[in-house]
């Protein structure tokens, strides 16, 4: 069971959360070429190592936040609210 540190509620059990996927993808501007949209919708870096990802604390404060987690070990390296710098672990 992962113990996920919600920035607002503190560490809580994994079952309270919903995964939201890769937090590094950025929605292109409306004028961006089609290739940029293909990248955004479909293509992922899929790293074996630290992964920057979205989680929703659905059974708690119901807020989205970001987590850095090592996909090889499931170790959680840090968490942060949207827009704030993610502390803990290597970049």
């Amino acid at each position: 069971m992962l113990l996920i540190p919600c920035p607002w509620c503190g560490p809580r059990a994994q079952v309270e959360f919903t995964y939201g996927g890769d937090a590094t993808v950025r929605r292109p501007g409306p004028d961006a070429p089609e290739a940029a949209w293909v990248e955004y919708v479909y293509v992922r870096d899929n790293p074996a190592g630290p992964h920057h990802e979205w989680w929703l604390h659905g059974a708690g404060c119901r807020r989205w936040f970001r987590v850095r987690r090592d996909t090889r070990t499931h170790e959680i390296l840090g968490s942060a609210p949207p827009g704030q710098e993610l502390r803990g672990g290597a970049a």
Partner: protein
Amino acid sequence: MKYSIFSLARNALSRHERWPLAWRSPRPKPRYDAVIVGGGGHGLATAYYLAKEHGLTNVAVLEKGYLGGGNTGRNTTIVRSNYHLDPNVHFYEFSLKLWEGLAQDLNFNVMYSARGVLNLVHTPADMDAAMRRGNAMRLNGIDARFLTTGEIARRIPNLDCSPDARFPIHGGLLQPRGGTVRHDAVAWGYARAADARGVDIIQQCEVTGIRIEDGAVAGVDTTQGFIATPKLGLAVAGHTGRLAAMAGLTLPIETHVLQALVSDPVKPVLDTVVTSGAVHFYVSQSDKGELVMGGDLDFCNSYAQRGNLPIIEHVVGACLALFPAFGRLKVMRTWGGICDMTMDGSPIVGKLPVKGLYMTGGWCYGGFKATPASGWLHAYTIARDEPHPLNAAFTLERFAQGRTIDEKGAGPIPWAH
């Protein structure tokens, strides 16, 4: 040596101490006509069909660990072709037909057991979807039968078919030719048959880099040195993204872990593969007597080959809701395998945008049943440098072209397929 009743009798006389090794363990040659990365079912099948169907025998299979040590040895051994979308229907039916003759073809007992795969239906909406899929299968010439609750209760007496069950059963879609195959035997059978045709199977040989010269594959760097080849096929399941990155490619794939578990072994209690899409659960009984079961992915990216307990709890909870009698069993073992989940839930089998580079991957968590067709069509594509009509739709380019093959209609959320 051909395995037969006579070879068994001969070796019984020598107390089974003189069986020859099933395959060689050669040192890698400096150059091959084709190199396949990944010594699981898909990679070994590719090499076998390259040799058998296309006469390409100067071929190596490189495996970083041991044969069948990845997802080939970690799946729940189910084979079926009960799909709805045309490319999937034809692909998986081709695969099931290969399964049916595989033991004879390989001279190796892969223990294909056509015990039937039953998809339970719990709601009227489930019923519509199952009827629609069953009709699509029958229109494509594939066996599909709809069973009533009464027929299911007679066929599977342990299943709770009462009206007050937690997940009431309204009926089910049965594919009688679906069933199970002994997964380790698939790796061993393909390895032995490929080796007999001259393929070099090289274990403990990890690919560390892909060399590309003038836009074409020149060879691979490995832990056993450089190996030159003009044609490189990737069959590495959850590591597809890592290998493609060595060729400068980023794929529409995420790597996720799928868990499975077995109970302690008991006498025969379940002679059909039973699945429930509504609770996402599947179970069958192995020849050893263990109940083999699984459910959802862990829902977050993982390369760890092990998962977390909430999913195990969900799987066991689903099992007990459907089969209350199994509550006396104990979970004996759990494990995880890492799956390359694509953005539409369908595989990528074909050419990659580097000359001489091919892949069979993106199998999500349904790769085992595809093994023979995957190898056959991967081999065809490598030998002819063009896809066969059966894998022509499973391209990497389909995402950019708006031609996704989304069986479940889940959209570009890889862990939802």
